[in-house]
């Protein structure tokens, strides 16, 4: 029998859910128009007034929010809650060196946790399960998000974070872990490390559920993970601007349920019009109840399609298909978002190397590796190998600091990197996902 965390909301009739969404949207728009200088001005510029929102479809009249808006209003210009109402910050790296800050009121954390409690329950998790959270903890939203979601449903949480993989395998066995949350590539890596230790995840552990995401993956990867590791693997979606990881597939594995009382999902074409049903486009999300940092029609940059019919699990909430790509040049390296522009900005701060670069991403075993090629400037060239090695490690260090992900650096001859050939030559993604 299907277990619902919040049966009243999750199985609500679609028409009833849409009524609720409209009321929440209307309230949200009035709230923003009254309290957000930024969004008030943007609505005025677009000639929209809260009174113009007379139906859920009228959401299309509202102006978009972009990642650039968060960056331009760094650190907290878009917050509408006073600082003493904010109980947490998360920070993600921005596209140009300036990070993006998300603040949460107590209610924001509560709803984020509720969203994951419903999601993890829909994957068949509950009291008695032991969840190893192998997403990064800290400024990144992955670790803490899953942590509180799993605790809410009464599961036991093992906050393993990323790294020290052999120990992760040992803990998985010793603490009888039944579920893991991490990137799909990290789970494959855990599987490989376990095999080297003479352990089969399938036969020697109790692992039965993987909640996997934060990077693109495919049905083929799911099949491989499920058959090799003997688990059910569920896709998870979310991004820090929306709170963090929020939504997962249910046991039907037919799309990720977007809880309609928390978020409204649109899929739009390049000109901002809704795509026909079943067609791919950019996912645009409105968070209907966020307090500290309200999000209206946020352009995620993720490409997907939406399915609004009732799911065979009984849940009436819309589902999005797994993310198949990006509308921009964002890369996802070991679950961390990286924009080539961040590399460019970081390099501009380093006098020994030029501003031209090339990023090469590949997968060694199961894990992503990023290489950045940079040119040594003429006046910083030294005959001493150790000086050149120092330049290289200092560039590696600076890039790691600004990208939050480690990469290796290759020094190349001046003038040898592609200059005007555009983005296709600046980034070589050799991963076969």
């Amino acid at each position, binding site marked *: 029998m299907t277990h619902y965390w919040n049966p009243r909301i999750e199985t609500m009739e679609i028409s009833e859910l849409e009524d609720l969404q409209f009321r929440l949207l209307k309230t949200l728009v009035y709230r923003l128009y009254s309290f957000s200088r930024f969004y008030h001005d943007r609505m005025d510029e677009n000639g929209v007034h809260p009174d113009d929102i007379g139906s859920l479809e009228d959401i299309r009249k509202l102006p978009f929010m972009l990642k650039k808006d968060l960056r331009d209003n760094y650190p907290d210009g878009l917050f509408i809650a006073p600082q003493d109402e904010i109980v947490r910050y998360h920070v993600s790296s921005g596209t140009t060196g300036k990070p993006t800050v998300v603040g949460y009121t107590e209610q924001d954390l509560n709803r984020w946790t509720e969203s994951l409690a419903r999601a993890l329950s829909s994957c068949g998790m509950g009291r008695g399960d032991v969840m190893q959270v192998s997403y990064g903890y800290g400024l990144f939203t992955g670790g803490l998000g899953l942590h509180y979601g799993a605790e809410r449903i009464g599961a036991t949480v093992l906050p393993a974070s990323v790294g020290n993989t052999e120990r992760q395998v040992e803990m998985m066995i010793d603490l009888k872990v039944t579920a893991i949350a991490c990137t799909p590539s990290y789970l494959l890596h855990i599987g490989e490390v376990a095999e080297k230790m003479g352990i089969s995840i399938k036969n020697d552990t109790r692992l039965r559920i993987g909640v996997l995401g934060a990077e693109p993956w495919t049905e083929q990867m799911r099949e491989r993970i499920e058959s090799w590791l003997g688990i059910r693997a569920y896709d998870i979606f979310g991004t820090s601007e929306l709170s963090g990881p929020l939504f997962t597939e249910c046991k039907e594995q037919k799309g990720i349920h977007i809880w309609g009382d928390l978020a409204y999902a649109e899929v739009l074409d390049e000109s901002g019009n809704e795509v026909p049903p079943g067609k791919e486009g950019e996912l645009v999300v409105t968070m209907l109840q966020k307090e500290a940092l309200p999000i209206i029609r946020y352009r995620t940059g993720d490409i997907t399609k939406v399915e609004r019919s009732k799911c065979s699990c009984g849940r009436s909430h819309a589902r999005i298909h797994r993310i198949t790509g990006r509308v921009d040049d964002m890369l996802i390296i070991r679950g961390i978002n990286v924009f080539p522009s961040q590399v460019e900005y970081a390099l501009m701060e380093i006098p020994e190397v030029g501003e031209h670069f090339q990023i090469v991403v590949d997968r060694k075993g199961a894990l992503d590796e990023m290489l950045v090629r940079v040119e*040594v400037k*003429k006046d910083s*060239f*030294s*005959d*001493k*190998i150790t000086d*050149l*090695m120092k330049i290289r490690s200092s560039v590696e260090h600076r890039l790691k600091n600004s990208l939050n992900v480690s990469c290796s650096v*290759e*020094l*190349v*001859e*001046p*003038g*040898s990197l592609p200059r005007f050939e555009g983005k296709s030559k600046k980034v070589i993604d050799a991963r076969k996902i």
Partner: protein
Amino acid sequence: METDEYCIKQISVFSENKPGRLAAIAKALMEKKVNILAFSIAEADGFGVVRALVDKPEVAHSILSSLGFNVAFTEVIAVRMKDEPGGLYDIAEILGNAGINIEYSYAYSGKDGAVLILRVDNSKDAIEKIINLGATLLKSSRFH
């Protein structure tokens, strides 16, 4: 002591560690009729530094720079060695006794005998010590 005449101008060229780079450097020098007297390649992960003693360092520097290479002049000294067993030992012992630290070194054995080329922290100090301990240094005029 006059030490400048023993300071030899070596050219150092930054090079990526990939096929054809040495050929590109050698071809450029050939076309400008620059003769290479001694050379070595120091390699690190993914890149290297080609170091050479040439008869016309200025010409070599300008042609390689114009081709886009990172080129630098580096001061080295050249010590005469006996071209027989123990030749290197004699010199190495002198350097050790004098407390001279070698940054890098390479050697060649030509028609006039064997030569050890040294890059040291302080060339002037090293030149004085080496001469005082009885070894023979080659003047830069022997090279260019």
